[in-house]
């Protein structure tokens, strides 16, 4: 079995996140990290492979892929720590400024390039990247690859070439199924990602990261990056800080103070 897990290098949500003058997410090596929700995707892929018998397992592979400059290797190193078998980064100046369509096109090209070496059974992604929070790249990737989509899975099984997921959303529980290969996105409820063990942490430092450019994956440079983007950031700015909190310590009238705050601000 071969599973591809697209991952993203994002600013740590605990850090002071900001946009560049060009309206792009500022990503540095200092405060960048593997998108936390991608850990659930890696864990889901590893569990599917670990459930196989020894023979199948020996020929199985979990490949983490990402799109970005060299800083993004930090995300792939983390993926190696968790136990993926191989890591690929698509890197090209032409990719800068990609919107969700450019990103999906680029990831699809990497998946197709991997398919040239052998079939890919599943693509598993996290439910969203914690910087953009668009959560639409998985379905755009499915559309680009012409594969069925199974999104926001809180349970995932693969049996006899059929993928089944359960998902909870907006007051509804759904069970969906599709034949593999398919694109699956998983939520943070699907599993609890493992902690990397010492041996894998050490080994991850020196494992090879394959780097491809757009030409290597047969990608038309005008379909990605700024050139292919369908939106443009006109302006971006940090919001002014909220005024200092009006803090009341409850000495028996805290609830009245709360109600009074709502009433005098015309909020009830």
């Amino acid at each position, binding site marked *: 079995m071969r599973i591809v897990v697209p991952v993203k290098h994002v600013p740590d949500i605990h850090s002071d996140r900001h946009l560049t003058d060009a309206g792009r997410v500022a990503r540095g090596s200092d405060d960048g990290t593997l998108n936390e929700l991608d850990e659930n995707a890696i864990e889901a892929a590893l569990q599917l492979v670990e459930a196989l018998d020894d023979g199948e397992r020996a020929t199985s592979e979990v490949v983490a892929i990402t799109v970005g400059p060299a800083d993004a290797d930090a995300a792939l190193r983390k993926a190696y720590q968790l136990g993926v078998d191989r890591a690929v980064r698509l890197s090209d100046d032409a990719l800068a400024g990609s919107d969700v369509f450019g990103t999906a096109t680029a990831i699809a090209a990497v998946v197709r390039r991997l398919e040239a070496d052998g079939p890919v059974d599943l693509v598993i992604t996290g439910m969203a990247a914690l910087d953009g929070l668009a959560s*639409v790249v998985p379905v755009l990737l499915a559309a680009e690859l012409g594969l069925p989509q199974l999104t926001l899975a809180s349970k995932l099984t693969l049996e006899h070439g059929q993928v089944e997921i359960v998902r909870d959303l907006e007051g509804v529980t759904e069970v969906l199924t599709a034949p593999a290969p398919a694109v699956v996105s998983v939520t943070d409820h699907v599993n609890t990602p493992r902690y990397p063990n010492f041996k894998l942490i050490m080994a991850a430092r020196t494992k090879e990261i394959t780097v491809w450019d757009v030409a290597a994956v047969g990608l038309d440079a005008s379909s990605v990056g700024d050139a292919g983007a369908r939106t443009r950031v006109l302006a971006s700015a940090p919001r002014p800080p909220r005024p200092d909190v009006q803090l009341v310590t*409850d000495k028996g009238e*805290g609830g009245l103070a709360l109600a*009074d705050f*709502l009433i005098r601000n015309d909020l009830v």
Partner: protein
Amino acid sequence: MADSTPDPTTAGRTVLVVLDRPDRGLRSPARELLTIARDLGEVTAFAIAEPSQDALAELGAYGVGHVLVADIVGDSADAHLAHLTPVAAEALVAAVASTGADVVLLSSSFLNREVGAHLAHAIGAGLVLDTSAVSVGEQGLVGDKRVFAGSWDVSCAVTTAAAVVTVRANAVVAAPAAEPVVVQVDRIDIHPSAAATATVLVSRTEHAQPEGGSGRPALAEAAYVVAGGRGTLGDFAPVEDLADALGAAVGATRDAVDEGWVTHDAQIGQTGVTIAPRVYIGAGISGAPHHRGGMQASGVIIAVNNDPDSPIFEIADFGVVGDLAEVLPQAAQAIRAHRG
């Protein structure tokens, strides 16, 4: 290169507004979308389910003279087809072709974001998600949004001829049109492709309303939200009491959901429901980044916590340091008394 910026002086912009389940009447997100759409061009409403009589009357009040209802025609008697986002997107592709729409507006649910993405992919449109304002000007169509847990403002211009935009709840105050109109309903048959139906929806179970919650607004679209966290120690009665005094929805942190104190539907956060109500009240919530990412764009933030050093006070407008089991019922009683 993408298409050049459309000429803002071009008259006759057509805006397609996607209605969610209008068979159950119009909900506040639909009214908000219609209010925004009126300023952008001629509005046509789109629905996959048959609008109720009430919904049609309200569409007329909002100045919508035309509703396009898609009928999904499947090979099998599969009632679930319309719930597959690629199928809904194919219906919208046909609706855009039939109406010549330049702009498609949807409310910002997870499923609508998927539908919008598929639609934009299919018609080569630009996509702006989770906007709080949409306008047309010199730069063409522009969507404003908040990013990084509400800490940054970004304006995005669509550089293609067509635009697909999702709008977050409570972005505007809904207002009917100055003059009501008569609504004409047209129908369109949709034959979904094999690709769109490659995924099969095996079962679909709507959750029962939480006990006593049937009268409360939906969390994603509520103007008032009272949320509880670990500090409730599992007793959500004070949270629900204040919510009902305010006519608010009840929300919760991931912790409270994982403890089984409330259902998953109540989870506010980056991986749950993202909210931006007029007033948010958090009780017994410390304010972890994941929760803040789901509520920080709220208009007014109020926190009640017994720990004065809780991070949530850093983003609050008003806070009470105290026991929520004492503070919330007292506040609820005072609000009920004020309302008479």
